[in-house]
């Protein structure tokens, strides 16, 4: 990268203090302070180094903060969905194995209220009804996902309106 001359920066600094610099000239000044080692800087210019360093640091902090704030809720929602999705998937796999594994078909054991049920068809129909319930649960999960998506979009103004309601009800 091309070195920025100290002479140029000295003249820009005077313009800067008179608020006559453009944004691109100010970017150049900031770049000079970022890239030039102290020893290569005149005493006069070095005096303002901390000021420009502070501006750059604050800009970075603010951008980081804004970046951290934005996706938080979406990440949380995805995490929740992943968790319940995994539980449902594991349950489906277990039941599918239980129902379809041929090696276990002869020794199928089923217990309801402490009694062994040896009726294979009853066991299978019971497992089938459980599968239906899981399917229903999955559908509800999908619906809640859609609903959560809508709520998260509407959340900001709605929470503001809540605040207003609170204030109005107090007064």
């Amino acid at each position, binding site marked *: 990268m091309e070195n920025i001359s100290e002479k140029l920066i000295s003249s820009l600094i005077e313009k*800067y*203090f*008179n*608020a*006559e610099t453009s*944004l691109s000239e*100010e*970017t150049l000044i900031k770049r000079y302070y970022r890239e030039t080692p102290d020893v290569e800087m005149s*005493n006069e210019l*070095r*005096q*303002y*180094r*901390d*000021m420009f*360093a*502070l*501006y750059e*640091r*604050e*800009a970075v*902090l*603010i*951008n980081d*903060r*804004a*970046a*951290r*704030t*934005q996706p938080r809720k979406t990440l949380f929602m995805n995490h929740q969905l992943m968790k319940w999705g995994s539980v449902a998937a594991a349950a489906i796999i277990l039941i599918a194995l239980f129902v379809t594994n041929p090696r276990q078909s002869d020794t199928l054991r089923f217990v309801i209220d402490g009694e062994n049920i040896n009726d294979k068809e009853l066991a299978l129909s019971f497992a089938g009804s459980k599968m239906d319930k899981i399917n229903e649960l999955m559908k509800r999960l999908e619906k809640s996902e859609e609903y959560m998506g809508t709520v998260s*979009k*509407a959340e*900001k*103004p709605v*929470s*503001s*309106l809540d*605040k*207003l309601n609170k204030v109005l009800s107090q007064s």
Partner: protein
Amino acid sequence: MVGMTSQEFNRTIGAIRPKLVNFAALFVKSGAATAEDMVQDAVLKLWKTQETQQIKNTEALTLHILRNLCLDYLKLKKNNTEELKPAYSALVSESPLEKLERKDGLEFIKRCIETLPEDQMIAVRLRDVLGYEIGEIATILGTTEVNVRTMLSRARNKLREKILQNGKY
């Protein structure tokens, strides 16, 4: 646009939200949640405004509302902490040890900025930290570009004066 639907409103605000949070974060140092609260309050006021009148520039108006909220916050904060933390007077009546600590340049500049008049402080932060154009700052502060340049020049020269007085180099 009078009486936007909540969907339109959310879309408009969503697009400028990072900018709003950035702006509020200039004033609020106690965590992202408080900057978010400021933005929420500004959005609420904007929502009420757009129900009754036409908004030409949503971003500028929201930033203007936000700026007023932030100034109120600063005034409140100042009233609550003035006795505990006198701003610039602390710098001139400090002990030799404190004087040494003050040599930490960044902290010193930060404190100097905090002692500037409110509009000058906002102008400096909008320009030098967030890189706003003079025209944008004028809209936010509700003044002219010439006034913004005057504010900026005064603020920067005050900072320069303090830096030279500090005499670190």
